[in-house]
């Protein structure tokens, strides 16, 4: 009786902490101990570490570890250091982080330069240009995207415009017309045609990587800050290049009383940078959060399993139900985030060209 009430209490604590964890995404990053699991052998099973491993980039596709054997696909490592030049080898040379190879060592997934005695050599800068699992998966996704889209385009060319679409063409066409009619035209007016290739590329670039990231065992490409930074910076430049003098006049000489200008001008100027920054963080946070939630629900089984086998098995169906539910939401989110990124980019481009419309209206 005493034993049973204690395990129920532990279970409640575990569930409570997991839910707190879900509602405050920050607690993951700060490696907060997962309440219930921490009490039982934290060394053998660390969910926070596993989750981070899942969502972070890596030099190998790691599927499972059975005993001492790792089931993984090691990927090419490409390193450049101004002192040592270009180095290329396979990640398997590190023997899962145990060995030093060509003066480099893998520490917690990061490749660092080491000196003769095997200590971290901070004098040498290393640029890790490796084809990590994010890079490889992104390449696969993009090759797939190019093949699919060029295939569809060829079908259009072959059949001409008058033939009704068929097959995959039918699936792609409404998406393309959606991006054109709901994103391009309303935000960019009659200048939309110039931006369509960019908007479509961004949309499908994000979408296919979002969807590929949902395959179990795959990498979390769109939930990586580097990926979203690149897209955000490209958006930033596209927005910047489509600005006109009205846009800049509005920023540096806003139509407000003189004494407000010193406040408003920095705010407006900052706005140029906050827009793409918001794009970067939004996509990153949404995708990473989805992956964390899904892995959390799977982890729950093992957290309970660590407490008692019965609890683990018992919680498995509940956990699976939640995981499947979140998975469906994530499929939706994959589309929504691609749409939001594209739509907001179009909105910002539209804002930066806004004066032009007024101009044309006057002439």
């Amino acid at each position, binding site marked *: 009786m005493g034993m049973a009430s204690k395990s129920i209490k532990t279970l409640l604590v575990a569930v409570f902490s997991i839910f707190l964890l879900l509602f405050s995404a920050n607690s993951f990053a700060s490696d907060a101990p997962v309440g219930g699991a921490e009490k039982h052998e934290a060394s053998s099973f660390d969910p926070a570490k596993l989750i981070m491993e899942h969502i972070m980039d890596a030099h190998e596709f790691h599927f499972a570890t059975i005993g001492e054997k790792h089931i993984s696909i090691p990927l090419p490592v490409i390193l450049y250091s101004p002192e040592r030049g270009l180095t290329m080898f396979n990640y398997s040379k590190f023997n899962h982080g145990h060995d030093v190879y060509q003066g480099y060592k893998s520490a917690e997934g990061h490749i660092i330069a080491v000196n003769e005695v095997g200590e971290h050599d901070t004098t040498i800068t290393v640029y890790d240009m490796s084809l990590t699992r994010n890079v490889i998966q*992104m390449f696969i996704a993009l090759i797939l995207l190019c093949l699919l889209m060029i295939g569809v*385009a060829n079908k*259009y060319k072959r059949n001409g415009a008058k033939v009704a679409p068929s097959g995959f063409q039918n699936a792609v066409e409404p998406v393309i017309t959606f991006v054109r009619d709901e994103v391009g035209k309303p935000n960019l007016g009659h200048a939309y045609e110039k931006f369509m290739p960019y908007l479509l590329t961004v949309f499908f670039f994000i979408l296919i990587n979002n969807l590929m990231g949902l395959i179990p065992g795959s990498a979390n490409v769109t939930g990586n800050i580097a990926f979203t930074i*690149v897209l955000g910076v490209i958006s930033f430049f596209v927005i910047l290049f489509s600005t006109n003098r009205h846009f800049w006049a509005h920023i540096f000489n806003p139509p407000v009383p003189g004494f407000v200008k010193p406040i408003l001008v920095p705010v407006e100027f900052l706005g140029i940078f906050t827009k793409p920054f918001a794009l970067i963080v939004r996509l990153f946070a949404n995708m990473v959060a989805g992956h964390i939630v899904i892995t959390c629900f799977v982890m729950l089984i093992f957290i309970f399993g660590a407490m008692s086998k019965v609890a683990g098995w018992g919680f498995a169906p509940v956990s699976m139900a939640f995981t499947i539910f979140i998975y469906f939401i994530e499929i939706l989110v994959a589309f929504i985030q691609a749409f939001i990124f594209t739509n907001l980019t179009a909105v910002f481009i539209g804002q930066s060209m806004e004066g032009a419309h007024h101009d044309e209206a006057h002439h």
Partner: protein
Amino acid sequence: MELLNPGVGLLVWTLLAFLVVFFLLKSFAWKPILASLKERETGIADAIASADKVKAEMAALKNENEAMMARAREERAVMIKEAKETADKMVSDAKDKAKSEYDRIVAEAQSAIMQQKNAALTDVKNQVGTLVIEVAEKVLSRELSNKGDQENYIKQLAEAVKLN
């Protein structure tokens, strides 16, 4: 914060991949697809516009036909009326002509009769004259002895005079 620390490699590879994919898809996918979609849309719009035009033309044609039919009907009525009038006129003309002919013939006949009657009367008068002269001759040539005989004789002579 490991999570917020972007990897240089992924940055470079993503940028490279995006640019390659952008230019590839721009020229080989988006351009033909958007062009086809536009072509199809304008084609459909044109087809609808021309269908509307044809419909309007059909309606105009129908109206025209109806107007033409109405006009034809009117014309037919007019023609029938005219024909009837012509026919009536012809009949009345014929009647008039016949009557005038008849009048003329009658008039001619009457004048001929009158002429002949006059001629006959003239003839009778002449004959009566001659007869009177003859009778007078005979009476004169016979002696007027007997009054009775004379009267008988005149009677005899008068009887001999036959007025045709």
